[in-house]
C-alpha cells in the first residue's frame, strides 16, 4: 500500500518537474529577445557570426523544440554545456554543490540547535518577558531582508573590526585566497553567511516549536502523565517535546530544497561560490542550459523532500493513514 502511494506520488512529481522546467524555459525565452547568451557588446562581431552562434545554441528554433532536445539529453544523463562558457552543466553543479551544502546544512543545524531550546523556553515561560523578547527577535528575524543583514554584518564584523585592529571576519568567499582551505579557514569564512541564513530558520522554527509545544502540553495525556506523578522534566521532554517535534519533521523535510536554493541571497551578498549564486548570475545572462540544469535539480529536491516528509510523517504518526 505504501508502495502504491509512493509510485503515484512519483508520477505526480515527474509532472511537476516537467512543468516547472518548461515554465522556466518559457520565461527565459520570452524575455530574451534577440540577445545571444555569451556575447558581449563587441563591435567586431559580424552579424553572420552572431547568427551562427545563435543557431549553434539552438536558439533560432521555437522554444519547445529546444526543450525536447534538452529533455532527450537529460534522459541520457546529459545536461549539456553552458551557453556562456562551454563547460558542462554537470561540472558547474558538482563544483558548486558542496559549497552550497556546506553553507545551508550548517545554517539548518544552527537553526535547529538554537530554535528548539528557544521554542521550549517560550512555551514554558509563556507570557514572560523572555517570551516577549523572543517574539520580537523572531519577527525581526524573518522580516529583516537577508541582504541587509549580510551587509550590516560585513560592515561591523569585517570592516569596522579590522579598522580598530581587532580580530575580524572575512567578507567573501568560502576560503582564503592564499593558503586557505583548511577546516579552521573554512569555518572562519562560514561564520557570517551561516549566521545570516540561520537567522531565518531560527526565527520561524522557534515560533513553530513554541506553538507546537503549547498545543501538545495542553493535551489530555500530558495531564494524565502529571496526575500519575511523573516528574515535570519527563513530562515536558519525554512526552511533550517528542510529540511537538513531529510536525517539525515535515517542516525540515520541506526545507530540503532549501539546501540547494535557500542560500541564494546570502551566496550573492557574501560571494559564496555556490549553486544559488551560479543560477542567479546565469539567469541574468540567459544561460539556458545552466539555469535549466539547476532548476531541474532543485525541483527534483522539492518533490523528493515533500515525498520523504509525507512518508516519514505517515510512519511516525500511526494516526495518519497514507491514502
Amino acid at each position: 500500500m505504501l508502495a502504491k502511494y509512493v509510485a503515484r506520488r512519483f508520477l505526480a512529481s515527474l509532472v511537476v518537474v516537467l512543468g516547472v522546467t518548461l515554465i522556466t524555459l518559457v520565461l527565459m525565452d520570452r524575455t530574451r529577445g534577440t540577445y545571444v547568451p555569451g556575447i558581449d557588446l563587441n563591435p567586431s562581431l559580424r552579424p553572420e557570426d552572431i547568427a551562427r552562434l545563435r543557431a549553434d545554441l539552438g536558439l533560432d528554433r521555437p522554444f519547445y523544440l529546444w526543450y525536447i532536445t534538452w529533455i532527450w539529453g537529460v534522459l541520457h544523463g546529459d545536461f549539456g554545456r553552458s551557453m556562456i562558457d562551454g563547460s558542462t552543466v554537470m561540472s558547474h553543479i558538482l563544483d558548486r554543490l558542496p559549497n552550497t551544502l556546506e553553507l545551508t546544512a550548517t545554517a539548518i543545524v544552527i537553526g535547529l540547535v538554537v530554535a528548539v531550546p528557544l521554542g521550549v523556553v517560550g512555551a514554558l515561560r509563556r507570557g514572560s518577558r523572555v517570551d516577549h523578547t523572543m517574539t520580537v527577535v523572531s519577527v525581526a528575524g524573518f522580516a529583516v531582508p537577508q541582504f541587509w543583514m549580510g551587509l550590516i554584518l560585513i560592515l561591523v564584523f569585517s570592516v569596522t573590526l579590522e579598522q580598530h585592529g581587532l580580530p575580524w571576519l572575512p567578507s567573501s568567499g568560502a576560503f582564503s585566497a592564499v593558503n586557505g582551505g583548511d577546516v579552521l579557514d573554512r569555518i572562519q569564512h562560514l561564520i557570517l553567511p551561516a549566521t545570516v541564513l540561520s537567522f531565518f530558520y531560527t526565527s520561524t522554527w522557534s515560533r513553530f516549536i513554541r506553538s507546537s509545544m503549547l498545543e501538545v502540553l495542553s493535551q489530555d495525556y500530558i495531564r494524565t502523565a502529571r496526575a500519575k506523578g511523573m516528574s515535570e522534566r519527563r513530562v515536558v521532554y519525554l512526552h511533550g517535546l517528542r510529540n511537538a517535534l513531529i510536525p517539525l519533521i515535515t517542516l525540515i523535510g520541506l526545507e530540503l530544497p532549501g539546501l540547494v536554493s535557500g542560500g541564494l541571497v546570502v551566496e550573492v551578498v557574501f560571494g559564496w561560490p555556490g549553486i544559488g549564486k551560479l543560477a542567479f548570475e546565469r539567469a541574468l545572462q540567459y544561460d539556458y542550459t545552466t539555469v535549466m540544469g539547476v532548476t531541474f535539480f532543485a525541483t527534483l529536491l522539492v518533490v523528493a523532500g515533500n515525498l520523504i516528509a509525507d512518508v516519514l510523517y505517515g510512519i511516525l504518526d500511526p494516526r495518519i493513514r497514507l491514502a
Partner: protein
Amino acid sequence: MSREEGADDGGFAQFEQFLEAWSRRDFLKRAGGAAAYMAFLGGAVEFLDACAGTSTTTTTTPKKGGHVVEGNFSDIRTLNSMLSSDTASNQVIGLMFDGLLNYRKNGDLIPALAADLPKTSSDGLTYTFKLRSNLKFSDGQPITSDDVKFTYQLAYDPQYAAVSSPRRGDLSKYIASIDTPDPQTVVIKTTQVFAPFLANHALYGILPKHVLGSMTAAQINTADFNTAPSVTSGAFKFVKWDKGQQVTMARNDNYWAGAPYLDQWIYKVLPDSVAVTNQLKTGEIDIGPVDPGQFDALKTTSTVAMSEFPVPTFTFYAYQLDPSKSAGPLFQDKAVRQALLYALNRDQIVSAVYFGHGTVANSVEPPTSWAYKDKPTTLIKFDKAKAESLLDGAGWAKGADGIRAKNGLKLKFTMITNAGNKQRESMLQIMQQSWHDIGVEATPSLIQFPQLVSQIVSIRTFDVFLVGFNWMQDPDVSPLYHSRNTAAGGFNGALFKNDQADTLLDQALTTLDKTKRKQLYFQFQDLMSDLEPSPVILFNTGIYGVNTRVQGTDFGPFNQFQNRPWNHATWVTDGK
C-alpha cells in the same frame, strides 16, 4: 639562471636589433621600442612619464617571493585567449599568456614575444615579426612561429571554422595568410591595408600548439585546456581555478622577461564594487578597480594608494535618425540635435554622477587617443540660452503646455537605458530635467540590458538610447559611425549615414601613415561636432586601488585590466 645573466645574453642580440632600428624609416615608431630595449637591458621596470596615472615604482631592490590578490566583480568564463570575449577572462588570460606585442600604458605598441615591432612592407600588406630567441612555454617547450600561426588559425583558418572564436569576424576578413619561413619568423599578410591591424590583433595570447594542435575544432571548444591551461606563455602559470571564487596562478620561471618576483598571483571574484572597496580596506585583496562613488571612502585608507587615469570608456546617447520611425522626424534637423546638447550641463553630470571622475567630451574621440582633437570647429558647451534660440530658430515654438512643437509635432520622446546601472539612470534624470527647462519633454525608461542591446543592433524602435562604450587603442570609430554598421547586427543603431563621414573613416583605415590618419580624424571630428548624431557625454577615468605593500604596478589608460607588460615586475615589500 639569474635575472642579470639573462638580460646580458639577450642584451647583445637586442643591441644589434637596436642598431637596426635606427636605420628604419619610421624612427618615431621605433623610439618607443628603443626605450623599451634600454629598460629591458637594465632589467628594470620601464620609466614612463607620470602624466597618465601614478606609478608605484621605487628605486629600492625588489624582494622575491610573496603573493598578490587582485579582485574584480565579474566572473571569468574561459582561459583560452582565442575564445574569450569578456574583460574578466581577458584579465586573467593576460597574466598567463603573452602575445606578439603589448601596450605601454599610453597605448604605444611594444614588443612582447616578438623581439621588435614588425617590419611592414611598403604596400602596407605584410607584417614580418621576428620572435625573441630562447622563448619557452611554462613547460620548457620552445615557443616558435608555429605556435603563433596555430593560435591565429583558430580564428581565421576554415579548417578551424567550428571553433567558437569571437575574433573570427575580423581575423578571417583581414588575414590572407600566415607564413613561418623559420621557427623565429612569422609573416602575416593582410587582405587589405588596415591601419588598426597591429593594435587590435597583434596582442592575442599565444597558445601551445604541442598541447592543442592534435585536437579537432570541436574538441578545442570543449578542451580541458580552456578551464585548466596546462601550459602558458606569460608571466604566470596556472595552478587552480576554484569556480566562482578565484583563479590561482604561480610564477612562470621560463618567462622571457625574467621570472616574476612573486610566487603567486591570485584573481579573486567579488560580489560587487562595494565588496572591492571593503576588501581593499581590510587587505583581503591588494589590487582592485574602484568605483567613482567609493573613491572618497578609500582615499583616507593609509594602506591603499589610488591610481587614476583617463580611459577610452565613455557614455553617449543617440538620436533616432530613421525618418520612418516615430521619433525620426524630431531629430532630422541638426539644429535640434545641437540644441539638446547645448542644454545639457555635462560638467554637472560628471560631478554629480561620477563625483568628478570623468571629463566632459569635446569630441567623439577619447582624450587618450593620439588622434584626439581637443577643440573641434563646433565646440558645444552648456548654454541654455543658445539651446533655446536654436530651437526657436528651427521653428520649434513653445506651446501653451510649455512643450515645443512644430507643425503639430511635439518635441516629446522616450529615452531608454539599461536598468541596474545607477549612473545611467541618474544621467537620464538629469537629462530629463535639463530638457524640461527648455520646453522638451523627455521621459526616461529602463529596460534590461539584453533588450537594450537588441534595440541598438536590430529592433531600433527607440527614440533616444543612452549606453556606455569602450574604444580600443586605435582611433577608428567606424563601429558607431560608419554607414555599413547600420545593417542589422551593427552598432550604428541611430542609423547615421553620411558620405563624407564614411569617406574619412575609410581613408583613415586604409593608410598606415599616422600623420595622414591624424589629419583625416581631425576632419572627421570637426564634422561630427557639427552634425552631433550621437553626442558623447563624458569620458570616464579609470581608478585603481593598490595596497601600499605592492610595488611595480603602473596602471594607465591601456594598462588597466589586460595588456599589462609589468605583471612580472610586480613585487611586495613584505615578501609574503
